[in-house]
């Protein structure tokens, strides 16, 4: 599937969801269970993306100290927890990765 088809389908689905109940007003209600489940979409989807990025190196679990992305990611989690600020978190994580890669280049 080309990126253009992916975007077109993604856009159509997104529009469909935004349009759905405005269009169907009064004829359909969101079930309570689904309403509740929707709260857990962000933590579930985002973590499913984040974990492999941090813990896997070339598809293999890497818990060693030279996994700089894991260490920088943990630093970013701490910064996110205390700052609650997205931009500060991104900048802190990037600086952490820079420093760690620099250190390991010298050490290794």
């Amino acid at each position, binding site marked *: 599937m080309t990126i253009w088809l992916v975007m077109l389908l*993604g*856009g159509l689905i997104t529009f469909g969801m935004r349009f759905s109940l405005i269009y169907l007003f009064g004829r359909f209600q969101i079930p309570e269970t689904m309403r509740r489940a*929707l*709260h857990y979409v*962000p933590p579930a989807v*985002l973590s499913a993306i*984040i974990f492999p990025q941090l813990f896997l190196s070339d598809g293999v679990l890497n818990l060693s100290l030279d996994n700089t992305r894991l260490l920088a*990611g943990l630093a*970013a989690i701490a910064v996110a927890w205390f700052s609650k600020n*997205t931009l500060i978190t991104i900048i802190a994580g990037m600086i952490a990765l820079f420093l760690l890669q620099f250190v390991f280049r010298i050490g290794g």
Partner: protein
Amino acid sequence: MDNQIKTFWAGVQAEIPLLIGVFPFGMIYGALALDAGLSKGAAQMMSSIVFAGSAQFITAQLVHDSTPGLVIVLTVAVVNLRHMLYSASLAPYLASLPTRWKALLSYLLTDEAYAPTIIHYEKEGITPYAHWFLLGAGFSLWLVWQISTALGIFLGAAIPDSWSLDFALPLTFIAMVVPVLKNRPAIAAALSAGLVALAADSLPYSLGLILAALVGILVGTILEGRKSSPESPAPKEIS
């Protein structure tokens, strides 16, 4: 006419604080989408075709990881399901509009347009010009999102590869997810999804991602159902 323009501008004004926050995000998206391997044209067009911040960041990440298109589309669908809630919530205020108005406003219905609009509607009730408010909020956000994306693509092209800019994508997701981990079901949803994603990483077609997301959502929903305190605040939706 006067009332229409006045209401439109009230929508724009209510949106301004959000626009300031969104601008750097559009730039980051533009730069990262380019870095993830999208063409300049595709990166820019995604901002108008999909027009949903978090789904665009996720698409960029998944394109970078060579995820199959169908899995990307499925993930976008799951991530954007929350828009049905916004649609349900605004529907009574837009019920009398012709379908073309409903379609236009639906296209503009992002998290950032929804937030000030529902606050305004709940205060004002159902009024004849209410749709102009959402148009003002939604259109100003749309414009800023397109401009900031373009600027990000322009600047992103100048950033050297040695900067490991691709890591800014997981960092963006970390910044989005940490603030929603406010209670045990949310934390359990995040941890279970993350662990399943690691265990199922070798599944074909990146299906591990979908499986992990579904397990996380299920775990969170079941844990919340077992608690006897429904009044505890649910996690905030991502933008």
